């Protein structure tokens, strides 16, 4: 997984490029959590427009980061979902807790 991050104040924008499955989940999780060690980050946007594949393992990564942010009173936004990713997010109720753009 390739990850491109830019930060402005409390906002962190992260673009993921690659396939988000169980194989890449741990590396992706570690990279995101390294960025989230900066406790000034309150609003994380994950741009999925470069993610050509995601399954429930990827869903776990997204929801795990949501938990970290909500514990510090922050929140998570997702953007750039393909039709398949959108379908997984919808069926698992992600949009009730995570914003979409």
């Amino acid at each position, binding site marked *: 997984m390739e990850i491109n991050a830019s930060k402005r104040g409390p906002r962190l924008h992260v673009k993921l490029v690659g*396939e988000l*499955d*169980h*194989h890449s*989940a741990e590396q992706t*999780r570690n990279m995101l959590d390294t960025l989230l060690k900066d406790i000034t980050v309150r609003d994380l946007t994950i741009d999925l427009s470069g993610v050509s*594949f995601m*399954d*429930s*393992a990827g*869903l*776990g*990564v997204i*929801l*795990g980061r949501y938990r970290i942010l909500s514990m510090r009173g922050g929140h998570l936004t997702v953007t750039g979902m*393909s*039709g*398949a990713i959108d*379908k*997984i997010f919808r*069926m*698992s109720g992600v949009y009730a807790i995570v914003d979409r753009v």
Partner: protein
Amino acid sequence: MDNWMELTFPSLSINEGFARSATAAFAALLDPTIDELSDLRTAVSEAVTNAIIHAYGNDRSAMITLRCEAEGKKLRVTVKDTGCGIADIELARRPFYTSKPELERSGMGFAVMEAFTDSLEIESAPGEGTTVIMEKELGRASGN
């Protein structure tokens, strides 16, 4: 049965992507739509990942078998492991149920397989491994 293929590979996570690609390559012979191929890749990935994560513990040399069978426009995909098996299949199928919440599993794998295919069948017993059988009709949008 018109055509079929079978692959056996060790339970390494790198084979999740391989299994998706191999299934998509076989399915492409049935003239599927892009969306159908995408659904199929997701469903196969869920089944193979489950075998890797749940069936064999930390044993990475245990084998997984992926079988694809074509019959007319219908594709049947079978993912088989010889691991620990599932004691309560009904519970395992339930959306959000996971036996490994500590690993950030969402418990949506079987629900995704069900949503992304036409039918999902699970054969499993403790100590006897698990076989997941999914069927999907392809090429619907093209009308032939």
